Every structure is written in C-alpha cells, then in structure tokens.
C-alpha cells in the first residue's frame, strides 16, 4: 500500500516547517549556545585545529589524559581545518558540521527503516517524524549535546538496519546461500561487512556510548536469528556468521580508531576511573536514575520540558498512547511474512530500552546496578536515559506499522469513495497528536539552545582582558566556570568547587579565603579568581533557583580577602588578582632561571639557566607518571610534588634545554598512520568488490 506522492511530499514539507518553528536558531546568524553546547569561538576553533589529537588536555582544570577520549579527534580536526583554511567562523562551522548532518541523517534513517519493513511504505516518513520530534531528542538538543552525542544518536537507525541486513545475508538461513552463488555471495557479504565496519566507526567517532547501544541492539537481533535459524545440521554456519557480523566490522573499527585505541591500551589508560566516583559508582547511577518506568515506556524524558537538572516532572498520561500504538503492532502479526520477525524484534527492543532507561528505579532496578558493576562497558551509562535510543528506534518502526495495519483494516470496511482519505486522515491525526505532546517546543517554551542568547558585553571585555596577557595564567571560577568564560592553552579555566572538591558555598569560601590557600593558588599558576555573572541562573542556586544573595555572598567574601586585589571594569563579573602567582614551570630554588616554549599541550621545551644537579623544576599540570623530561639522552620521570603537580629533578649543572613531553603522544602519529592505511585498504577492497560484482 502507498499513500500518494503528493501526501508524501507534503509530509516532508511539514517536517521542514515544523523544524523551522522549533529550531529557528539554526537559521539565524548567531553563535548557538545553551546547556553543554560547545561555543565555537575563534579561539576554540584555533585550539582544535592544532590539538585535535592531543593526548593531554589542559584547557580544563590542571589537565588530564585524553587519549581515551580522542575518538572525536578526526571530526574536531576537520572543523578546525575548515575554519583555518576556508576562514569559516563558528556560526558556519556549527551548522555545516553539526546541525545539517543531524537533519540529513534523520531523513536518511527513514529510508533505511523502510528497506527493512517495506509494508510501511511511505508511512516511513513518520520514522523521521518520531525520531526528530520526541521529548528525548528535544531535551538532548536543548541541552546542547548535538556535537557528539546528538550525531551518534541520529545515525543509530542507519547502522542498525545495515547490520540487520548483513545478518540476514550471513548465511544462517541455508535457503539464502545456494551453492552455485557461493563465491559471489561471500563477496557481497564481505562488502556489507566492511560497510558496517565503516558506519560503526563513524558512530564511535561521534560517541562510544551510542555505538555500544547499537551493538547491543545488533547482538539482540543476532541472538534472535541464531535461536530461530540454527539447528544441528547448519551449526557450522555460525563461524562465517560471527566472522562477517562481528569480527570483520569490529576489526575494521578497531583499525580505523587505532590512533586512540593503541595509546589507551599501551599506557593502561582507564578513562572511567580518571573521571572519578561521580562517574563510576552505583550511587551516581542511583542519583542519575531520574526516569521512572512510566516515563521510559512512554518516551517521556523525565526533565521535560523545563530541562532543569534534577527536576523531574509528573507523568503526563497523554504520552501513554505512544506505547499503546507501538505495541498494538503485535496484534497485526499473522506469522506469514518474514518481515514480521522485525516487528517482534523491535517490540522486544522497545521493552528492553524502556527497562534500561529507568536505571535503578523499580521494578527490578537492582538488575541495572548489577549490570553497571559487572557487564563490560556498562559503566559508561551512569545516565540511563541514553537507552531511550533503543525505544525511539523501535517506536519509529512499530508505530508506522500499526498505523499502516489499522488503515488496511479500516479500508476493508469503508466505502471506496472515501478510501483515499483514510491514510492522510490517520497520518494527520497522529501528527497533530505528536504536536500536542511537544507543544512546549512549538510555542517556544523550551530552554537551553532553544533560547536566543549572545555573549554579553561584559564577558567579551573579560575574555579580551584575559587573552591580552601573553604569559601563562590560570583563572579560578567561583564556584563553577561560566560557559562564556574563555579558556585556551595558555589560559586554562578551573572550577573552584571541583578543584577543592568542596561543593558547599560556605565551606568553599572559607577554604579560598584562608592564608594557606594563597600559596596553593600561587603555586598552581592561578592569577585570577572570578565570580561570574550568572546569565542563565544555573550557578548560584538555592533549591534549584537562582539566588542573588548567594552571588553577593561570594563577591563580598572575596572582597574582604586581603591578599586579593579586585580589578574592576567587567560589570557583574567580579575579578580578583592573586599576587605573585607562579608560571607554568617554576622552581622552589630561586637560583634557577627558567624559560619555556610550547606549541602543543603535550610538548614543552624548557630553557634552564644556572641550574644545579638535584634541583627541582615544577610543572604545574596534574601529576601523571607518563610525563617525562629528557636532557640530552637522559630520561627523567615525573615525581609528584605539592598539591599533585609534576616535577623533574635536574640531572646536571649548567645552562641547557630540557624537553618535557607526554609519552602517549608519541604513539598518536603511529596510530594515525595505521588508521589511514586501514581506511585506504577498506575503500580499496570495496572498490574492487564493486567492480567484480558488476
């Protein structure tokens, strides 16, 4: 069954118009900001163009190893390169590299899902509709998470469908593998396998967690297929099945991502443990389990629509029609068509997604906590709402199938003159229903990126002031860094609460104001303390509401500190100078003269004058044993000093240069070489296979 082409075209025009209404900021000429959105200032674009593959990131706090987070490096590099070579500013870059691909992938996904369940025909456009206009997507985009998370999320159906089709052709069903097509069959299978590897690599580049979710969905389908198809007589087909479905695609992915996988494994980097207990403890999971089962099964994001962290709204019963429509698809299965296995599969996927999305909440929340502690990779899901992805993918197939089935049933009972109107009427009713559900988005009541914001003048002045200093200096933001605050290689920003691990305002102010802290700040190269203007009311909070008195308390407390000198001229941004703050490299011994130069966060050339053997040079980055120094052929390992900095003991007297470097960076170039060679090899094989097929 097909609805006519005019309805199909009108449907996509409607999606475009609705996108214009909900996302008008995309079509504006301002930098987008809000939530966790990375503001693409020229400074930031310059930073990523040179440091996209840096294994040490030092623009936040005192730096940390980033080799395990370099998956996004190639995309960062592309954006940086485009900005430098084509002179595109952030306004163009964010639209070309984030927003346009997001909507393009959303449209492509419906074509992919249509291939899987052709009965839904042109109802397939509803897949795009459901994927784009659900509360999870809107909260994701409003929260500023389009750059990695959003793109990884939106490509999920494309990758899943390709894997499903690969599994279907993997030969488990003997009738699909007649002997006379054996060689050609294997070539087609290899081609599909390599394409799945490329697509999976793309998703891993955007975000590893969503790639894990996609892999989970693929494993579930594989298990279903194995249970349905494998018998004693064809068990030998399991070997090529595993080879083409998992080993080749994952092998390709591993090779393409060698540039970060190799240093991560070689140097035993554990990114989750680096992030700390707030990311890898079950208490964190329990805290972040905001969605209840009724929220997750009805695709209602727990923070909808205010998107205030921690504030969960009541269940809205009108959302329950979504699972009713989705699971009604099971009533239309007759067991006659092979596509009906997909309906059962997606129904199972939806239930699993709903169960996992509620995290540690009842029923059986202990299962999620057990999986968090025992299932490899599950520790990445401190925030269970990412599992909404499974349901959204499932509902985007099930709901169009239900509507198609209802319409087919209705048509048999309606006069022929009205039959042409049935499909458009049902589609219109469903679209109106979704619009009612997401009405806060349509009427401009969402926050975050949906609200037009531009950098206030006072922040522009403050950033200019910070950047005007050539010498290295850190800024300490009380209590947290504000999104408009600048941070660069030579001017990193630190959130005071995270630095001191104190989150109570009174205790934090007491700590910062104490005499001991002056030396700590000086040794940490912190030149300025900033109490920021809270433009969005998200920093100075009492009971989740902006508290102006709290902001004033911070300011007035720091005004009384005698060793701080206020620098005026930045409006409500209160800036205090820390006198005699040290440089990035310094020594407790006053006899040494130290100079240094650097182009990258992982490599410094340090000029030592009047040095003596045994004297210590301090490098005020977070201590990591992989920082090393080299004088001539002598390698010096970093020793922890003071409040967790690196330090190097000089091996000889005199005047000389010392190279300070972060060891894993040496492997990045080798890893990039492996990745590029692998990419060329994969494309070469695909080209040859394509030619031979013809």
């Amino acid at each position, binding site marked *: 069954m097909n609805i006519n082409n005019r309805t199909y075209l009108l449907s996509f025009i409607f999606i475009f118009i609705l996108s214009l209404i909900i996302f008008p900021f995309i079509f504006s000429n301002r930098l987008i900001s809000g939530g966790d959105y990375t503001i693409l200032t020229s400074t930031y674009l310059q930073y990523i163009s040179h440091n996209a593959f840096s294994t040490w990131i030092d623009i936040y706090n005192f730096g940390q190893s980033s080799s395990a987070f370099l998956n996004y490096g190639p995309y960062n590099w592309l954006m940086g390169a485009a900005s430098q070579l084509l002179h595109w500013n952030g306004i163009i870059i964010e639209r070309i590299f984030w927003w346009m691909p997001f909507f393009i992938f959303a449209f492509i996904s419906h074509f992919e899902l249509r291939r899987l369940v052709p009965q839904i025909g042109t109802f397939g456009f509803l897949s795009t509709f459901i994927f784009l206009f659900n509360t999870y997507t809107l909260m994701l985009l409003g929260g500023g998470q389009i750059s990695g998370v959003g793109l990884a999320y939106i490509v999920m159906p494309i990758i899943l469908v390709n894997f499903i089709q690969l599994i279907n052709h993997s030969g488990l069903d003997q009738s699909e593998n007649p002997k006379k097509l054996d060689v050609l069959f294997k070539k087609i299978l290899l081609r599909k396998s390599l394409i799945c590897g490329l697509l999976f690599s793309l998703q891993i580049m955007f975000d590893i967690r969503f790639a894990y979710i996609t892999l989970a969905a693929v494993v579930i389908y594989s298990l*279903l297929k194995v*249970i*349905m*198809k494998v018998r004693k007589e064809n068990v030998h087909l399991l070997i090529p099945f595993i080879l083409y479905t998992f080993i080749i695609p994952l092998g390709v992915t591993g090779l393409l991502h060698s540039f970060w996988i190799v240093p991560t494994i070689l140097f035993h980097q554990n990114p989750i443990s680096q992030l700390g207990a707030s990311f890898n403890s079950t208490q964190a999971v329990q805290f972040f389990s905001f969605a*209840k*089962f*009724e929220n997750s*099964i009805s695709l209602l994001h727990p923070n909808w629509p205010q998107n205030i962290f921690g504030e969960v709204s009541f*269940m*809205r*019963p*009108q959302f*329950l029609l979504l*699972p*009713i429509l989705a*699971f*009604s698809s*099971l*009533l239309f*299965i007759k*067991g006659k068509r092979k596509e*009906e*296995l997909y309906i*059962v599969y997606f*129904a*199972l996927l939806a*239930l699993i997604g*709903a*169960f996992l999305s509620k995290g540690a909440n*009842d*029923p059986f929340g202990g299962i999620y906590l057990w999986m968090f502690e025992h299932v490899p990779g599950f520790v990445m899901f401190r925030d269970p709402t990412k599992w909404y992805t499974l349901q959204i993918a499932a509902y985007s197939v099930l709901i169009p199938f239900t509507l198609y089935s209802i319409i087919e049933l209705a048509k048999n009972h309606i006069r022929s003159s009205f039959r042409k109107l049935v499909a458009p009427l049902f589609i219109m009713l469903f679209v109106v229903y979704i619009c009612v559900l997401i009405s806060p988005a349509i009427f401009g009541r969402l926050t975050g990126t949906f609200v037009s914001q531009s950098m206030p003048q006072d922040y522009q002045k403050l950033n200019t002031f910070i950047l005007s200093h050539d010498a290295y200096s850190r800024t300490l933001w009380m209590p947290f860094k504000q999104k408009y605050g600048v941070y660069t290689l030579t001017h990193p920003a630190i959130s005071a609460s995270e630095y001191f691990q104190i989150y109570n305002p009174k205790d934090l102010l007491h700590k910062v104001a104490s005499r001991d802290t002056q030396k700590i700040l000086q040794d940490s190269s912190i030149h300025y303390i900033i109490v920021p203007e809270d433009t969005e009311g998200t920093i100075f909070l009492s009971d989740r509401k902006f508290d102006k008195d709290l902001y004033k308390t911070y300011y007035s407390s720091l005004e009384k500190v005698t060793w701080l000198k206020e620098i005026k001229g930045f409006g409500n941004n209160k800036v205090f100078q820390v006198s005699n703050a040290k440089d990035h490299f310094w020594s407790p011994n006053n006899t040494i003269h130290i100079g240094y130069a650097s182009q990258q966060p992982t490599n410094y050339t340090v000029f030592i004058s009047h040095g003596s053997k045994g004297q210590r040079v301090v490098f005020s980055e977070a201590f990591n044993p992989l920082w090393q120094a080299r004088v001539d052929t002598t390698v010096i390992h970093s020793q922890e000093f003071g409040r967790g900095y690196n330090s190097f003991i000089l091996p000889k007297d005199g005047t000389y240069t010392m190279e300070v470097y972060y060891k894993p960076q040496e492997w990045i170039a080798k890893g990039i070489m492996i990745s590029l060679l692998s990419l060329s090899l994969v494309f070469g094989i695909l080209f040859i296979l394509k030619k031979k097929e013809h």
Partner: protein
Amino acid sequence: MKPQDLLFILIILALLWRRDPKNFVISGLVCLVFAIPLFQFWVFFTAERLIGYAAGFLLIAILLTLLKMMFKK
C-alpha cells in the same frame, strides 16, 4: 507481594493455559489504557503497578510469538 500482584500472576497463568500471544498483547494494552486515568487522577501506586504488569504481559507475548515462529519453521 500485594493482592494486585497475585491477581496479575493468576491472569498470566490463565492466559498461559490458552497460549495465545494476542491475549497477552491485549492484556498489556488494557493495562496501559487503564493507567491513563489513574495517572491523570494521581493514583500513582496502582498506575505504576499497571505499567509494570503491561510490560510483563507484553514480554510474555513477545516470547510466545517467537516460540511460535520458531516451531512453525
């Protein structure tokens, strides 16, 4: 265990005797439908329970359907 849970188990056993997945689907959908007015009128405890029962019915429906598909081959 609450009385509702016992009723849920009894219904499952009765439906399993018939072994028709569509009965489980209908039961699951009915639970979802009944949950709507309960949430609307803030009868949260029973409404949340109904969501759990719905998921239980739907899971059994899916498993039975898969079994039927498997043995049909």
